[in-house]
């Protein structure tokens, strides 16, 4: 009789498999296909930041932005983004991911004027997007955790994202976005997560974006 595998054993096996995969991919990748991922909660400005980076270095945008939550519902990647600073250059693939959420209610989209059918479809795609974003975590070499600095940073979603990156030993930078807004409190983000490097920027206006580019060189 085949013994039934317990959930706890599966978690351990999954963790070992992930570490092996990560080790092999890091050895063979030789830093040629570095992936930098943008992670964070919904509507924190991940795609706005992706667009800013792509516009600055490639002259084209990556995705559409919207005030309606879950505009990005699938992982999008822009290959071979090369940034330069003080004679150094860094080439990476930029991965924009759907916002991580624990709940998705199609009725929230109706409040933004979407029709019921469209709202339901959007909700369905959004759930798939969250699942896809979590699956992609293992492939990242560096993650920019994009948080909305006008909101309370101590949410379970943020804590879970940071905890998962720590568990996978993936380097990360916290980007406290939207510092151009009056309600912004980048200091609150810094004090909530004192163990991580936090950079306050505005992806929309480009404020302090050069500081972020410099930090990418240090982080990798």
């Amino acid at each position: 009789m085949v013994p039934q595998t317990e959930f706890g054993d599966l978690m351990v096996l999954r963790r070992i498999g992930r570490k092996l995969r990560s080790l092999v991919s890091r050895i063979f990748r030789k830093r040629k296909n570095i992936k930098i991922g943008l992670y964070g909660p919904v509507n924190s400005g991940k795609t706005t930041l992706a667009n800013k980076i792509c516009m600055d270095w490639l002259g084209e945008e990556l995705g559409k932005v919207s005030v309606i939550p879950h505009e990005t519902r699938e992982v999008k990647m822009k290959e071979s983004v090369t940034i330069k600073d003080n004679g150094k250059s860094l080439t990476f693939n930029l991965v924009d991911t759907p916002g991580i959420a624990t709940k998705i209610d199609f009725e929230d989209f109706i409040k933004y004027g979407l029709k019921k059918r469209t709202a339901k479809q959007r909700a369905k795609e959004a759930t798939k997007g969250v699942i896809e974003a979590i699956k992609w975590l293992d492939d990242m070499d560096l993650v920019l955790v994009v948080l909305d600095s006008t909101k309370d940073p101590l949410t379970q979603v943020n804590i879970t994202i940071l905890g998962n990156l720590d568990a996978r030993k993936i380097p990360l930078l916290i980007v406290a976005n939207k510092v151009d807004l009056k309600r912004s409190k980048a200091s609150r983000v810094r004090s909530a997560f004192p163990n991580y490097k936090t950079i306050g920027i505005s992806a929309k206006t480009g404020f302090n974006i050069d500081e972020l580019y410099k930090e990418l060189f240090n982080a990798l």
Partner: protein
Amino acid sequence: MHCDWAVNLPENPKVSDMKNIMIKMIPYEKFKKDGIKSFLNDLQKDTIILIDAKLNPEEEALIIKETMEEVSSRFKGIELGSLDLSSGDKTTPFEKIRNSIIETIIGKKRGFTIIGPAKIVRKIKRDPEDLLLYM
């Protein structure tokens, strides 16, 4: 019988306005054995789940991922909150070592995790040393 104190009491809420809120306690050992299967049905039936341990981040991500797969027009997902009682800003290095030994022996991280259906629990706020449930 004299009872002045009763005069200022608010009106009794109507029974019809009150919701029957179910809270189910699940031992971490059961969650570790069966995973989300141990409470997914309960969540979908509007029951709040309380696990007697702080889950690790990977377990939390797995819960988010697997509940997302179940989202429908009726089940809108979850609110998740957890408290780690073994480490914090005020924990001394000695306490951290002691807690780590205790956790190795008992096989779980001291704390608790609460998972509520989004339909019932609007928000779980971290205080940061307490969890507040908004329903």
